[in-house]
C-alpha cells in the first residue's frame, strides 16, 4: 500500500474530495514515505476522525506523518482524541486550532507529564480538604487563585516542579493555605472597611495578605508539622528567597497564637511607609475581599435562617414529647449557650447549646451548621439562639438552592443542572465526553381511577398473580438432616441408632435447622416513553406496570419505575414515576396513569443514568428491566448502528457494575439486534401487544427465581 496514488485515491474517498478543494496529493506523498504499519495507522485514524468531521480529518492527514516522527504513537493518539473532544465541546474552530498547533500540544503534554492535573487529583485532594475542615469546602479550577470561603479556585495544572509528586504537594499546600484562611478567620477582619478608608488600598491589601500568610504559616507549622517539613523542602527546590529581615521580625510577631486577623490588619495599617513588599510564598494565592465578603454575607444570612429554624424544630419536638397538648401560651423553653473553657488558644471555643439550662444533644446537621457559623463569626451570637417564628423565612433560603429540572429546562438548551453522560461513538472507537444532558423530571399525575379500572379488567389474573408471588416470598424452610441445628431430627436419629445397632456407620446428620431464604433484589423498570408507543402500546405498558406493582407489593422486592425519552443529546429526559423509597400510593398510581408518549429513544444515556441510581441501592441482586417497543433511535444521528453500539456499551458498563440488564420488547424485529445488545438469554419478545400485561409479571417471576 506504499503507492502514493493509491493512498491519494483512498484519502480522496474518505475526505470526499470531489466536493471540495482539498489537496490530497501532498499528504499522500508524505504518508507514502512511511513504513506500511504506520501508513495503516494513519489511514485508520483519518477514517475515524472523518466520521466526526472531514476538515478535521484532512488537517490530521496533513500533519500526522510529521507528528509520528516527532512523537510516540500514544501521544499522537492523545492529540487526535483531544482535537475530537474539543470539536465535541467547542466546535470546529477550536478543534482545528489544536490540529494545527502540534507544537503547542507537545509542549502542553510535556507539562502534563511532569505536572499535576487538578481534575486527576481532585478526588484525593477533596478528601484531604474535607478531612481538614469543618465546612464542606469545594474545589474548582479557576483564575485568579483564591478562595471565596466556600470554593477554592486552583490552577488546572501545576508544573512548577520537576516531579509530578512535588507538584501534587504544591496543590496540597495551596489547599492547606486556603483552608487556614477559612479556619482561622482571615475574612473575619474588617478588611473592606479598612480598604475603603485607606489612601493606598492596593498596598494595604498586599501588606495584609503578606502578614496574614505569615500568621497562618506559623499556625500550619504548629498544626501540621509533617506538611510544613515538605513545604520547606519545596521552598528549597523552588529557590524561594528567604524573608527580608523586617518581615522575618514580623513573622516572629505573627507566630504568637493570640494574634488574630483583626490584629494583623491593625499591624498592616501601622507598617512603616518605606517597608519593601514581601515576596509571595510559593503557595500563596490572591486575596479577593469582595468575593469573599459577598459569599460570606449570603451564607451568614442563609445559615442564620437555617440554624434558627432548626432550633424551632428541636423546640417543637422536645415540647411535644414532654407535655402532650401543652397550653400554647405557656412559656416556651429558652435556648442559651455555654462555652466550654479550653486552655488551647489554637482551637475555637467549644460551645454547647443549652435548653432551659440543660445541655442539648444536637443532630449532626445542626452541629455542622454551628461549626460553619463559628468559622464566620467566631461565636454563636445571641440573636441566633432565638428560634425562628412561623413563616419568618422564605423557604427558598432554607433549601439548597438547586434549581428544579423543570425550571432550568423550559425548552432552552441549557446544560445547567443536568447530569452529563458520555456516549460511545463506534466510528471513532471512542467515547464522546459529557455528551448527553440528562434531566430527571417527575411525571405529571394522570387521571385517577386508571389503576382500579385495570385491576378490574384483569381481576382474575390479579388474583392469580398475588397467589404466585405470595408463594415466592421470604420463607423459613426446615432443613432436615443437618450436622448442626436447633433441634434433634428424630427420624434421622432413629435411623442412625438403627444403623449403629446394625454395625454400620452412624450418620452425624441428626439435626433440623430453620433456614431463612432471603430475597434481596432491587429491580428498576425502565419504560420506553418514545413517540412510537402512542396508543395501545402505551396503554399496554401502563397496564403491565399496574399488574407488576401489585405483584411486587405482594412479594416485597424493592423496585423503582422510571420512563425515558429524548430529543437530541441535549434533551434526554428521565421521568420519575416511582423511586426505590417511594411507597406505592395514590401519587405513584396517578403517575403511572400519566405516563404518555414523548419523543425519541436514546437508550444509552437512560441506561447510564438509571444504572447509577440502581448502584445506589443496597441489594445482593440488581436488575434493570427495559420495557421497549423498538430500536434505540434519536433525532440527531443516534440511528441504526450508532444507537445500537452505544446502547451495547452502556449495557456492558452496567454489567461491569454488577447489574443484570433484561429487555422485554414488542418489536418483532428485535431478534435481529437484541442478542447483540443484551446477550442471547436476557430478553423476551412479546409478539402481541395485548399479551404484554399478562407476560411481564410472569417474566419477572421466572427471572428472579
Amino acid at each position, binding site marked *: 500500500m506504499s503507492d502514493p496514488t493509491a493512498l491519494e485515491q483512498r484519502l480522496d474517498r474518505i475526505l470526499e474530495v470531489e466536493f471540495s478543494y482539498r489537496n490530497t496529493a501532498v499528504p499522500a506523498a508524505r504518508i507514502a514515505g512511511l513504513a506500511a504499519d504506520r501508513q495503516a495507522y494513519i489511514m485508520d485514524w483519518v477514517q475515524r476522525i472523518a466520521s466526526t468531521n472531514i476538515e478535521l480529518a484532512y488537517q490530521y492527514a496533513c500533519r500526522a506523518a510529521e507528528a509520528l516522527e516527532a512523537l510516540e504513537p500514544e501521544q499522537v493518539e492523545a492529540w487526535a482524541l483531544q482535537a475530537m473532544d474539543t470539536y465535541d465541546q467547542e466546535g470546529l474552530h477550536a478543534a482545528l486550532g489544536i490540529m494545527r498547533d502540534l507544537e503547542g500540544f507537545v509542549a502542553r503534554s510535556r507539562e502534563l507529564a511532569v505536572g499535576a492535573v487538578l481534575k486527576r487529583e481532585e478526588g484525593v485532594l*477533596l*478528601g484531604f480538604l*474535607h*478531612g*481538614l475542615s469543618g465546612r464542606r469546602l469545594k474545589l474548582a479550577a479557576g483564575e485568579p487563585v483564591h478562595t471565596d470561603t466556600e470554593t477554592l479556585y486552583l490552577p488546572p495544572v501545576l508544573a512548577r516542579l520537576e516531579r509530578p509528586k512535588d507538584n501534587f504537594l504544591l496543590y496540597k499546600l495551596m489547599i492547606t493555605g486556603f483552608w487556614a484562611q477559612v479556619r482561622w478567620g482571615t475574612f473575619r477582619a474588617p478588611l473592606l472597611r479598612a480598604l475603603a478608608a485607606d489612601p493606598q488600598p492596593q498596598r494595604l491589601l498586599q501588606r495584609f495578605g503578606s502578614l496574614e500568610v505569615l500568621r497562618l504559616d506559623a499556625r500550619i507549622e504548629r498544626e501540621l508539622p509533617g506538611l510544613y517539613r515538605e513545604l520547606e523542602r519545596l521552598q528549597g527546590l523552588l529557590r524561594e528567597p528567604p524573608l527580608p529581615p523586617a518581615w522575618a521580625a514580623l513573622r516572629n510577631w505573627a507566630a504568637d497564637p493570640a494574634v488574630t486577623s483583626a490584629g494583623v490588619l491593625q499591624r498592616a495599617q501601622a507598617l512603616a511607609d518605606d517597608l519593601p513588599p514581601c515576596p509571595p510564598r510559593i503557595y500563596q494565592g490572591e486575596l479577593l475581599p469582595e468575593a469573599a465578603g459577598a459569599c460570606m454575607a449570603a451564607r451568614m444570612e442563609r445559615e442564620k435562617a437555617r440554624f434558627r429554624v432548626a432550633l424551632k424544630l428541636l423546640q417543637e419536638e422536645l415540647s411535644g414529647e414532654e407535655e402532650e397538648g401543652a397550653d400554647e401560651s405557656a412559656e416556651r423553653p429558652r435556648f442559651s449557650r455555654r462555652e466550654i473553657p479550653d486552655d488551647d488558644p489554637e482551637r475555637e471555643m467549644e460551645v454547647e447549646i443549652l435548653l432551659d439550662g440543660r445541655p442539648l444533644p444536637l443532630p449532626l446537621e445542626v452541629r455542622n451548621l454551628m461549626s460553619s457559623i463559628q468559622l464566620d463569626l467566631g461565636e454563636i451570637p445571641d440573636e441566633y439562639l432565638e428560634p425562628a417564628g412561623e413563616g419568618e423565612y422564605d423557604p427558598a433560603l432554607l433549601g439548597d438552592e438547586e434549581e428544579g429540572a423543570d425550571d432550568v429546562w423550559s425548552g432552552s438548551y441549557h446544560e445547567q443542572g443536568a447530569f452529563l453522560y458520555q456516549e460511545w461513538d463506534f466510528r471513532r472507537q471512542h467515547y464522546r465526553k459529557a455528551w448527553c444532558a440528562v434531566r430527571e423530571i417527575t411525571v405529571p399525575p394522570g387521571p385517577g381511577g386508571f389503576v382500579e379500572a385495570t385491576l378490574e379488567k384483569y381481576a382474575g389474573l390479579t388474583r392469580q398473580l398475588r397467589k404466585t408471588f405470595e408463594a415466592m416470598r421470604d420463607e423459613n424452610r426446615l432443613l432436615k438432616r443437618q450436622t448442626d441445628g436447633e433441634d434433634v431430627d428424630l427420624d434421622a436419629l432413629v435411623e442412625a441408632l438403627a444403623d449403629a445397632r446394625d454395625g454400620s456407620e452412624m450418620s452425624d446428620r*441428626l439435626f433440623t435447622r430453620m433456614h431463612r431464604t432471603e430475597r434481596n433484589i432491587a429491580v428498576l423498570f425502565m419504560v420506553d416513553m418514545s413517540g412510537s408507543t402512542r396508543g395501545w402500546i402505551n396503554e399496554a405498558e401502563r397496564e403491565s406496570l399496574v399488574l407488576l406493582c401489585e405483584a411486587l407489593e405482594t412479594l416485597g422486592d424493592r423496585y423503582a419505575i422510571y420512563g425515558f425519552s429524548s430529543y437530541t443529546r441535549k434533551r434526554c429526559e428521565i421521568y420519575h414515576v416511582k423511586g426505590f423509597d417511594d411507597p406505592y400510593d395514590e401519587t405513584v398510581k396517578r403517575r403511572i396513569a400519566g405516563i404518555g408518549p414523548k419523543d425519541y429513544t436514546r437508550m444509552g444515556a437512560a441506561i447510564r443514568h438509571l444504572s447509577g441510581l440502581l448502584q445506589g441501592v443496597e441489594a445482593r441482586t440488581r436488575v434493570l428491566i427495559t420495557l421497549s417497543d423498538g430500536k434505540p433511535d434519536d433525532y440527531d444521528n443516534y440511528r441504526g448502528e450508532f444507537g445500537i453500539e452505544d446502547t451495547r456499551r452502556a449495557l456492558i458498563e452496567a454489567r461491569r457494575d454488577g447489574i443484570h440488564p433484561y429487555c422485554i420488547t414488542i418489536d418483532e424485529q428485535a431478534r435481529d439486534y437484541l442478542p447483540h445488545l443484551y446477550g442471547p438469554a436476557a430478553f423476551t419478545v412479546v409478539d402481541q401487544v395485548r399479551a404484554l400485561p399478562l407476560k411481564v409479571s410472569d417474566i419477572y417471576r421466572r427471572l428472579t427465581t
Partner: protein
Amino acid sequence: MTEAKTIRLDHYLVEKEPYYQPTGDEIPVFEAAYGNRLPVLLKGPTGCGKTRFMEYMAWRLQRPLITVSCHDDLTASDLVGRYLVKGGETTWVDGPLTQAVRAGGICYLDEIVEARKDTMVVIHPLADDRRTLPVEKLGSLIEAPDSFCLAISYNPGYQSVLKDLKQSTRQRFVALEFDYPDAALEAEIVERESGLDAETARRLVKFAGMTRNLKGSGLEEGASTRLLVHAAKLMASGVSPVSACRGAISQALTDDPEMLAAVDELSSSLF
C-alpha cells in the same frame, strides 16, 4: 509466651481491673440500674469503649461476664440451649444466656440488632419485671436471681431499616449513650493504653478527628478509639507514624484507593 487457658463461660470473672476512663455518669447509672434489676442498653459507635465498659463493670460488681457477639444467623436456641446427641442419647446443653441466668452473672449481647428476630422472644421476658427465661424445649421457666443482669449494645450509626431496634425492645432498657471521648480524654486513653508520649497521642487524636470529618463524604465511619490505640501501639513499638496510621487506621476504614490516598495525605501532614 503465655499459655492459653480454658475457662468455663459461667466462671469467667474479670480478675484484674480493666482500664476504663468514664466520660460521664455511666458508672453510677449502671450501678443503680443493676441494683434495681433493670436491664441496660449501650448505644454508640463501634470501638468507643462499650465492651471495655462492660468488662469494667463486671470487675467492679464481681460477677461473671458472658459476652455473646450476635451475628445474623444467631437463633434463640443458640442463646438458650439445645439437645445434643451423645452416644445414642440426647442430652441438654445450656446456651450462654441460660448459663448466665443460672450463674447470676452478667450477660452482654453485643450488636443485638444483628441477631435473628426470634431471639427477642427470649430476651423480652428477661428484660421486664418478670425476669424469667422460658426454656421451651425443657418445658421450664428459669427465674433469674437478683444478681443477674442483661446488657445489650447497638450502634445507631448503621442506618439500615433492617437493622433497627424495635420500640418494644428498646423501651425495656435503661439506655446509656457512648460516644468518642473528647479530645483531651481520648489522648489520655491512647497514652495510657499504648505507652505513647503525650504529644504524639494528641496528634493521633487530631488525626482521628480529621477522619471523623470525612464521615459521610467518603468514609462510612471515622476512626474509633480502638483503632487509635492500635496505631499508638504500633508507634510505641517503633513503627513510623505514617505507616502506623496507614496500617492500623486508613486500611481499616476503607478500601477505596482515592480515599486511602486522601487519608494518608492527612496523616503525613500531621506527623
